[in-house]
């Protein structure tokens, strides 16, 4: 018994697959970076602003964590034009990823900020540091180290969520390979390749995350006291 595996199907389409992979990596990185930025702003704003802004930010987090990414993408891409937001697939995809990731990242950042012992903040307060200075100088650097493993995890999740963008015709890896698969009726070759590609990306990200983790925790000497 043998599963037919026609390598030629892949090699013939190599340029297209490479383009798809490049787009996947591109939307992943831009989506993750904008998600990280948004998450940081949302987490910081929750500490600095009043009750009503905080309520709004909580609502954002609840909505985007509480609904499937696919549905959010549909609403943005198909529902957007009805409120004047007409985005090309790629832009809609990146925006959706950023919004989705931002909700998760902000929660990671928030829990990180809250895990800094309050005594450290009191000491800073007594010395006259402002609320913002305390966040930036005392809480932020320690928070980053604490949440690094969680961030790596979330970035990996976002990598795999980029596959969803294929449903709004973003020409990323999943879109390209499933296209070839249907066209040539070669699902084994294409889907297997797809899995291997995502797995490699995820592996790369997690290795990178571990490396950064080792570096900063050694640099900051946070272990033990």
């Amino acid at each position, binding site marked *: 018994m043998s599963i037919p595996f026609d390598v030629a199907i892949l090699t013939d389409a190599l340029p297209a697959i490479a383009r798809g992979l490049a787009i996947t990596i591109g939307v992943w990185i831009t989506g993750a970076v904008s998600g990280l930025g948004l998450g940081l702003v949302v987490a910081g704003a929750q500490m600095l602003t009043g009750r009503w802004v905080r309520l709004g930010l909580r609502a954002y987090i609840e909505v985007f964590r509480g609904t499937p990414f696919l549905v959010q993408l549909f609403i943005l891409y198909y529902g957007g034009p009805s409120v004047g937001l007409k985005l090309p697939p790629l832009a809609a995809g990146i925006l959706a990823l950023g919004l989705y990731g931002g909700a998760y990242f902000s929660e990671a950042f928030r829990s990180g900020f809250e895990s800094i012992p309050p005594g*450290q903040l*009191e000491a800073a307060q*007594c*010395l*006259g540091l402002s609320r913002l200075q305390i966040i930036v100088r005392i809480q932020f650097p320690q928070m980053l180290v604490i949440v690094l493993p969680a961030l790596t995890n979330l970035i990996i999740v976002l990598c795999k969520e980029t596959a969803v963008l294929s449903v709004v015709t973003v020409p990323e890896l999943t879109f390209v390979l499933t296209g070839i698969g249907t066209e040539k009726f070669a699902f084994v070759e294409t889907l297997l390749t797809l899995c291997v590609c995502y797995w490699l990306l995820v592996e790369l990200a997690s290795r990178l995350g571990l490396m950064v983790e080792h570096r900063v925790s050694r640099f*900051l*000497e946070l272990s033990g006291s």
Partner: protein
Amino acid sequence: MNHLTAEFPAPLIEVRHVVKAFGEVVVLDDVSFAVRPSEVTCIIGPSGSGKSTLLRSLAFLEDYGGGEILIEGELLGYTDRRGKRERASEADINRVRRHVGMVFQQFNLWPHMTAVQNVAEALLRVRRLPAAVARARALAMLDRVGLAAWADRHPARLSGGQQQRVAIARALAMEPHIMLFDEPTSALDPERVGEVLQVMKSLASDGMTMVIVTHEMGFAAQVADTVIFLDHGKIAAQGAPEVLFHDETQPRLRQFLQNYFDRNAFWARRDA
């Protein structure tokens, strides 16, 4: 009152009828006292008596429900707006307590910074000194607590006693007029207590005004000008240590002090 103020310098800290409650529980019950320049005041009392809360109120780390705390004549933490008491702004609170330094039981150093960075941080961010000047002053402060050689170590690589001395240097760098100590030796190994008390003694002899919550009765007896015994949120006794520690008239104070005398009985017998 004029003949009094002429005789005594104005107090740096004035606590007037301060009241604080957590819900039903009264933590501070009509507490009043004053601390004059260069005076060392030790606050003693059983745990839960409100001594930490009282000290923390002096840096406005705790708000208080009633009464007044004046730091160098200025009301701490509140403003009077058309007869109504309102919480002051962050900038206002920082202005009133700018000459108050605080040292905590748990040191509360920032673990991601070295000793010298801990000390220099407020000089850089609050005083806005140039980096070289801030570092030089921070090193001088570390030298004063005997830690110049450890300046570039992170807190995790310092002993408890060394960490607490860095914390003292950090507070001193801001040139406080008043230093508050919240059980500064309670988290230390017994062997490390002495080095911290030594630094505090030298501060006292340099004329620093200090308020110290402590369980070190020997230290209080040697260094304090005034000892305040707090019990259930009230000042139950107050006076010079040589008087207070031998006061036989207050059963609650006697009972509290007896624990310490008993613990040290071993030494007393050998001395006799």
